[in-house]
């Protein structure tokens, strides 16, 4: 099927790749169908989470473990139930990236990771009430410390 996207115009996707977000994304609760547009470069960890409800809505996402090796979250029973998660291997985590003009100051929202059950194609943004993490975690932390 063909869809319109924010950054790539019209693209062809497969129905089976659509991820359902029963509760949407916080502040975008009515957006319940998304697709991950992977970037083709394996060295590049950034991807897009494109809404199918609104072609103008897309988030830049990244696997948090790329820059935060010790990221450690607890997925609550309610999310396990909601996303029908049966085993840890079927879970894939992403975090939403905020992109300022100066790319080196990009931040990732570690307080609100995106959890996806890759077997069922079900997703949710979860709320971590954990003071180790913030909504604006610098992705290039080491670089900024060095300055």
């Amino acid at each position, binding site marked *: 099927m063909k869809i319109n996207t*924010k*950054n790539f115009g019209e693209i062809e996707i497969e129905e089976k790749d659509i991820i359902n977000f029963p509760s949407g*994304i*916080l*502040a*975008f609760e009515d957006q319940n169908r998304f697709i991950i547009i992977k*970037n083709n*470069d394996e*060295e*590049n*960890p*950034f991807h897009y989470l494109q809404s199918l409800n609104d072609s103008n*809505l*897309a*988030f*830049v996402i990244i696997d948090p473990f*790329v820059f935060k090796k010790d990221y450690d979250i607890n997925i*609550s*029973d*309610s*999310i396990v*139930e909601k996303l029908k998660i049966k085993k840890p291997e079927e879970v894939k985590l992403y975090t*939403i*990236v*905020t*992109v300022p003009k100066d*790319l*080196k100051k990009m931040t990732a*929202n570690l*307080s*609100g990771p995106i959890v996806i059950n890759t077997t069922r194609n079900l997703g949710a*943004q979860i*709320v*971590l*009430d954990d003071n180790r993490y913030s*909504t*604006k975690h610098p992705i*290039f932390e080491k670089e900024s410390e060095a300055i």
Partner: protein
Amino acid sequence: MLILTRKKNESIMIGDNIEIVVTDIQDGKVKLGIKAPKNIDIHRKEIYVDIQNENKVAADGKIDFDSLKNLF
């Protein structure tokens, strides 16, 4: 909004299985204990609002993937 007055160690019930206990009141702060089934998520509202706001900012972001190649 329903407003109830409670003293220390008094509770309110929400439905049959959620109980909120006032465990301490001191210096303008109230400590609450919450008993709820495991499938109910409980968070402070600020964190919710923070994530909502950050999502709104992030929704405006745009990346040219090529420009990111050498950042890592």
